[in-house]
C-alpha cells in the first residue's frame, strides 16, 4: 500500500495545483492567500455575514493537514494521522478515486468467528448451551462491525454504507435481534453497492428477508376478499415515504413544488399505497436455515425462524397478486407479468421519479456534511444523481463526488458560514476518536459491544428505534437553531441522558484507557493508544496542535484552547496531563460539532 501511495504521490504531485474543486487552506498555489474570518464575507444567498468563531492563521503543511482532516471527518467514520497525511499529499479527488478501487471489507465473513469464539468463552465460563443463541445474534454483529470499522482501508465505502443503513432502515429493535448474520448480510449490501447504482440498492433491499420481516412483506399474500385478507401495505408505504420519493413533490433543489393555491403537492395517496401493496406480494423464503436433523424445502409462508435470513427472498407466483396495478401519474403495470417483472417495473418507475435525486441527495448531504445544505448544493447533487455525465442515472460515485467535492463542503468561505455544519452523530464521535487515536489489541480483535452505547449515548449501527432512523430529517431543536427555522436532526438524540452519557464514554476511552470492550468477556479490552500522544506531554501547545489535526480539524476555538492550556499546564504527571487535554477537547463543542 505504501508503495502505491508513493507512486501516486509522485505521479499526481504536479496536478496538485490543478484541482478543479476550488481553493483550500494552504493550497499553496496562491501566494497571497490569507485565511481569516471576515465580517464582510457574504456567502451567496445568505442574509447575514459570516461571524466566524475562529481566525485561522495557518499556512503550509499544517493548513493542508487540517483541511485533509476535515475532509476525512466528512468522508470516513474516522481516520488516523497517516491517512490524514496521505490525503494532504494526494488531494481529495485522487483519494476518492483510490478509495473507489479498493476491495470492500464485509461484515458477514467475521460473524462465524465471532460467534464460535464467544460461544466457547461462554461454555468455558460454565454457561448452559441451551441458553446461548442458536445462531449469531445482534451482539455478534456488533463485534464484527467494529472489527471491520477499526481495521479497514476502504474508509469511504464504509462511511457511505453506514449512511445508507440510516436511510434504508432495519433494526435489531425488533424480532431481527436474533438474526445477526442476516442483518450482517443486509448491511453488506450497502458495502457492496456503495459505489454502485441506487437502483440496485433499491432492488436488493426489497428482496432481503430482513427487510421482509422488518416491514412485513415477507409472506405477504395476494388478496382473498372472501376471508377479508388484503395485501399488507407496510412496505409499500414506507419505501415510498422514506426510501425513494418522500411525501411531497420536489424541485431539483429540494424545495417543495406548490400548486395554484401555494400548497404542497402530495406524491401519493392511500389508493396508490394499496396498488403498490399488490406489487410486493408473493415474496417468500429463498433458502431455509440449515437444520441438523431435517431438511425443509423453502416455501411461501415459512416463518423467519426457518428461513436463511441472509439469502434473498424469491417470488412465489401463485401468491402474487394478479391483474394490473395502477401506480403513480398514470403508470400502469400490466396484467400477465411475472411477480418479479412487476417488482422491477414498480421499482424502476419510482427510481425514475424526479424526487429521488433531491430526496436522497439531501439526506446523504445531511449525513456527511451539513444539516442545512443550500438549495443550490442540493440541486448540484441531484443533478449528479440524475445524470453522472455519461447519461447514467443513480450513479453513487457521481453523487458521492458531487457531495464531497462541492465548494459548499470544501471551500473555506463556507467553512465559517454560521449555518454550516452539523452535530456529529454519537457513533461518529466514537469511531472518529477511535480511528484517530487508535486502539491496542493484544490478539488482533477489535470487538465492541453496542447496546450500552446505544442506551447511554443514543445510537449504535442497526439499533434504530424505528424505521424512521434515530432522528427525523427535519428535526429542529428548541433554541437558536429552531428559532431561525433551521434543521439539526442529530440533536434529536442529544438530551439530558445522552449528552451526559457521551461524556461518560469519553471518560472510559480516555481516563480509563478503555477504547472497546465486549460484553461477554470484560477482561478482553482494546486499550486506547495514548503512547504517541504522551510524547507531546511536555509541550502543551504541540500536544493541542496535534489533537487539533486529529480531532477538531482546525475548529478549536482560541478560548477553548486557552481553557485547556490553563487547566492542564500545571499538571506534572504526563499521563494525567495528556488524558485531561484529550478528554476536555473531545467533550467540547469544538469536537462534537463538525463545521
Amino acid at each position, binding site marked *: 500500500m505504501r508503495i502505491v501511495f508513493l507512486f501516486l504521490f509522485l505521479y499526481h504531485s504536479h496536478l496538485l495545483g490543478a484541482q478543479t474543486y476550488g481553493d483550500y487552506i494552504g493550497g499553496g498555489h496562491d501566494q497571497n492567500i490569507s485565511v481569516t474570518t471576515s465580517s464582510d464575507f457574504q456567502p451567496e444567498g445568505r442574509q447575514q455575514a459570516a461571524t466566524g468563531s475562529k481566525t485561522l492563521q495557518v499556512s503550509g503543511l499544517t493548513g493542508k493537514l487540517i483541511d485533509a482532516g476535515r475532509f476525512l471527518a466528512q468522508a470516513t467514520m474516522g481516520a488516523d494521522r497517516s491517512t490524514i497525511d496521505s490525503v494532504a499529499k494526494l488531494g481529495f479527488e485522487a483519494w476518492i478515486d483510490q478509495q473507489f478501487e479498493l476491495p470492500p471489507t464485509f461484515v458477514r465473513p467475521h460473524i462465524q468467528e465471532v460467534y464460535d469464539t464467544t460461544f466457547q468463552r461462554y461454555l468455558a465460563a460454565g454457561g448452559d448451551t441451551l441458553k446461548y443463541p442458536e445462531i449469531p445474534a445482534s451482539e455478534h454483529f456488533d463485534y464484527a462491525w467494529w472489527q471491520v470499522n477499526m481495521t479497514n482501508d476502504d474508509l469511504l465505502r464504509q462511511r457511505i454504507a453506514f449512511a445508507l443503513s440510516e436511510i434504508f432502515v432495519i433494526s435489531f429493535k425488533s424480532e431481527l435481534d436474533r438474526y445477526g448474520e442476516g442483518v450482517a448480510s443486509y448491511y453488506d449490501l450497502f458495502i457492496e453497492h456503495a459505489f454502485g447504482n441506487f437502483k440496485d440498492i433499491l432492488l436488493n433491499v426489497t428482496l432481503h428477508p430482513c427487510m421482509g420481516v422488518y416491514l412485513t412483506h415477507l409472506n405477504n399474500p395476494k388478496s382473498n376478499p372472501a376471508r377479508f385478507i388484503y395485501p399488507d401495505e407496510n412496505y409499500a408505504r414506507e419505501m415510498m415515504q422514506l426510501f425513494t420519493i418522500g411525501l411531497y413533490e420536489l424541485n431539483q433543489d429540494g424545495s417543495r413544488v406548490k400548486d395554484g393555491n401555494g400548497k404542497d403537492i402530495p406524491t401519493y395517496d392511500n389508493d396508490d399505497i394499496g396498488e403498490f401493496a399488490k406489487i410486493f406480494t408473493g415474496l417468500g423464503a429463498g433458502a431455509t436455515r440449515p437444520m441438523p436433523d431435517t431438511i425443509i424445502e423453502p416455501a411461501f409462508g415459512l416463518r423467519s425462524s426457518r428461513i436463511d435470513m441472509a439469502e434473498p427472498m424469491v417470488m412465489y407466483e401463485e401468491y402474487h397478486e394478479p391483474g394490473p396495478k395502477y401506480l403513480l401519474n398514470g403508470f400502469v403495470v400490466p396484467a400477465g407479468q411475472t411477480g418479479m417483472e412487476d417488482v422491477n417495473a414498480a421499482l424502476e418507475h419510482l427510481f425514475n421519479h424526479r424526487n429521488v435525486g433531491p430526496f436522497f441527495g439531501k439526506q446523504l448531504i445531511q449525513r456527511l456534511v451539513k444539516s442545512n445544505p443550500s438549495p443550490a448544493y442540493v440541486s448540484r447533487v441531484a443533478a449528479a444523481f440524475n445524470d453522472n455525465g455519461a447519461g447514467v442515472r443513480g450513479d453513487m460515485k457521481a453523487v458521492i463526488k458531487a457531495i464531497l467535492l462541492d465548494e459548499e463542503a470544501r471551500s473555506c468561505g463556507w467553512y465559517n458560514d454560521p449555518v454550516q455544519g452539523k452535530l456529529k452523530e454519537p457513533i461518529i464521535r466514537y469511531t472518529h476518536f477511535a480511528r484517530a487515536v487508535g486502539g491496542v489489541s493484544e490478539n488482533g480483535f477489535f470487538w465492541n459491544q453496542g447496546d450500552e452505547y446505544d442506551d*447511554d449515548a443514543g445510537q449504535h449501527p442497526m439499533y434504530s*428505534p424505528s424505521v424512521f432512523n434515530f432522528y427525523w430529517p427535519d428535526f429542529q431543536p428548541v433554541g437558536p437553531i429552531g428559532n431561525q427555522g433551521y434543521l439539526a436532526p442529530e440533536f434529536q438524540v442529544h438530551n439530558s441522558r445522552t449528552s451526559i452519557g457521551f461524556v461518560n464514554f469519553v471518560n472510559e476511552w480516555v481516563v480509563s484507557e478503555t477504547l472497546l470492550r465486549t460484553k461477554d468477556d470484560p477482561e478482553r479490552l482494546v486499550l486506547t493508544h495514548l503512547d504517541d500522544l504522551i510524547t507531546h506531554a511536555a509541550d502543551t501547545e504541540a500536544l493541542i496542535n496535534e489533537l487539533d489535526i486529529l480531532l477538531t480539524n482546525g475548529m478549536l476555538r482560541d478560548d477553548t484552547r486557552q481553557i485547556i492550556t490553563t487547566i492542564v499546564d500545571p499538571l506534572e504527571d504526563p499521563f494525567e496531563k495528556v488524558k485531561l487535554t484529550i478528554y476536555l477537547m473531545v467533550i467540547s463543542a469544538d469536537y462534537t460539532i463538525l463545521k
Partner: protein
Amino acid sequence: MKFKSRRQFIKEFGLGALGLTTASSVTQLKAINAAYLNNSANELNSDYKAIVCFFLAGGNDSFNMLVPRGNPEYDEYAVTRSDLALSQNELLPITPVTSDGRQYGLNPAMINIHQLFNTGKVSFINNVGPLIEPTTKSSYQNGSAPVPLGLFSHSDQLKNCQTGLPHVRTHFGWGGRMADLLNSMNSNRNVSMNISLAGTNIFQYGETLVEFAIDPFDGSPGITGYDPLSTGFDANRTEGIDLLLGVEHSDMYKKTYTDILKRSLEGSIEFRAAMEQIGSLNTFFSDNRISQSFKRITEVIMARDILGFKRQIFFVRMGGWDMHGELLNSHERNLTVVDNALGEFANGLDETGMFDAVTTFTISDFGRTLTSNGNGSDHAWGGNALVMGGDVRGGDMYGTYPSLALGGALDVHNGVLIPTTPNDSYFAELALWFGVSLSDLSTLFPNIGNFYDTGSSAAPLGFMNI
C-alpha cells in the same frame, strides 16, 4: 409574571449560589422551597397533579384489548376478525357503569387492569382517534371532509396523537405546550417538569420547555468524576468542564450542544440529590423497562416537594405493537407487560398516597384493521384507549363503542373504523383536569370547537372529575 423565579428569589433573599452536590444541597433545596412556598407573594395551588402519557408505539390492536362479549356482538366480532378473534369464554367480563345494551370483556392477559376496572380505578375510551371535524364514511370517501394528514402512516399518526394537531405537520407536542402554559406553577428551574423515560419525544417538546430524560433503570447518572469538592485529577477535570460549559458560543450548533449539556448536568445533580432523600418504596416492580419506568415515576413523584413541582408530565414509550404478524401471541405478551406495569404503578402510588393525584392514559399511533392479513392486522384509525387514576370516573366506557360488523357505517375499508371519539375531546378533558383553562383549550387544540363547546360547563367526555 406572577411568581419570581426560584433563582430570583434566592438572589433577593441572599441565599447565595446553588452549589449542589451533596445531601446538604437537598436541605438547602427544601429550605428554599419551603420559604418560597410560604412567601405570600407567590400564588400556588396547593394540590399536586401529574399526568403520565403511556405511548404504545406501532398501533395497538385495541379491539382485541376491549372486546364485545355477548351475542350477537361477539359473533360479529368473530366473523370480522377471523383468525385474530379471541375466544368468547376467555374474555375477562366487565360490567361498565353505563350500559349500551351490549356486554364487554377484556383480553385475558389484563388481569390487573380487570381488577382496577372493577374497583373503579380504570376506564376505557371507545374508538378514539384523530379527526379534524366530525367525519362520515361518505364525506371521507368523496373527499369533502378534511382528514388527518398521513392517515395510516406511523410517522404522521405518531405525530398526530402527540401533537394533538392532525391538520398540520409539526413537532411541538401538546404535553410540551401544556408545560409551557403551566410551568409557572412550579418553582424548580433546573429540572424540566416534563420527565421522559424514553428520551426526546414529540409529546413533551414545547416551544420553550422540553423533556428531562432519565433512564428507566439508572435514573439520572451525572458526569463521572465531576465533583466540585474533589481533589486531584477530578478537581482539574471539574474545573475544566465548568469553564468549557461557561463558554458563550455564537455558533448555533455549538451553543445548542453546550447549553443542553450544561442544563443536563445541573439538572442531574439536583435530581440525584433529591432522589437520595425520598425514603423507601416497598412496592414490587418487575425487572423490565416498562415497569421500571413506572417505578422511577413513582420515585420522582415522591420527590415533588423537594424538587419543587406542583405539575409534572411523564412520558413512557413501549414499542412492539405494530403487529402485522404473530398478532395473538405478541399482543398477549405486550398486554401482560402493560398489565403488570399498571398494576404495580397503582400499588406504588397507593403506597405513597398519591393515587388520586396522578392520571395515566394511553395513546397509540392508531387502532388496527379488524380484518386479518392471514396472521396479523394492518394500520387502521380509531382504537380503544385506557385511563387510570383516582380522579378518573372509573369502571366505565366513554364514547360510542362501534359495531364491528364489516361494511358498517364507520368501516371505510377492511375494518378501518372512523373514530367515534375525537382525540381532541380525549386530550382536552385531560388538559382541563390538569389545570389548563377553558380559554386556553382552543390554543392547545384548535379543532376542539368542532367537537365541544368550550363555553360549556360540561366536560368533553366526562371521564374525569374536573
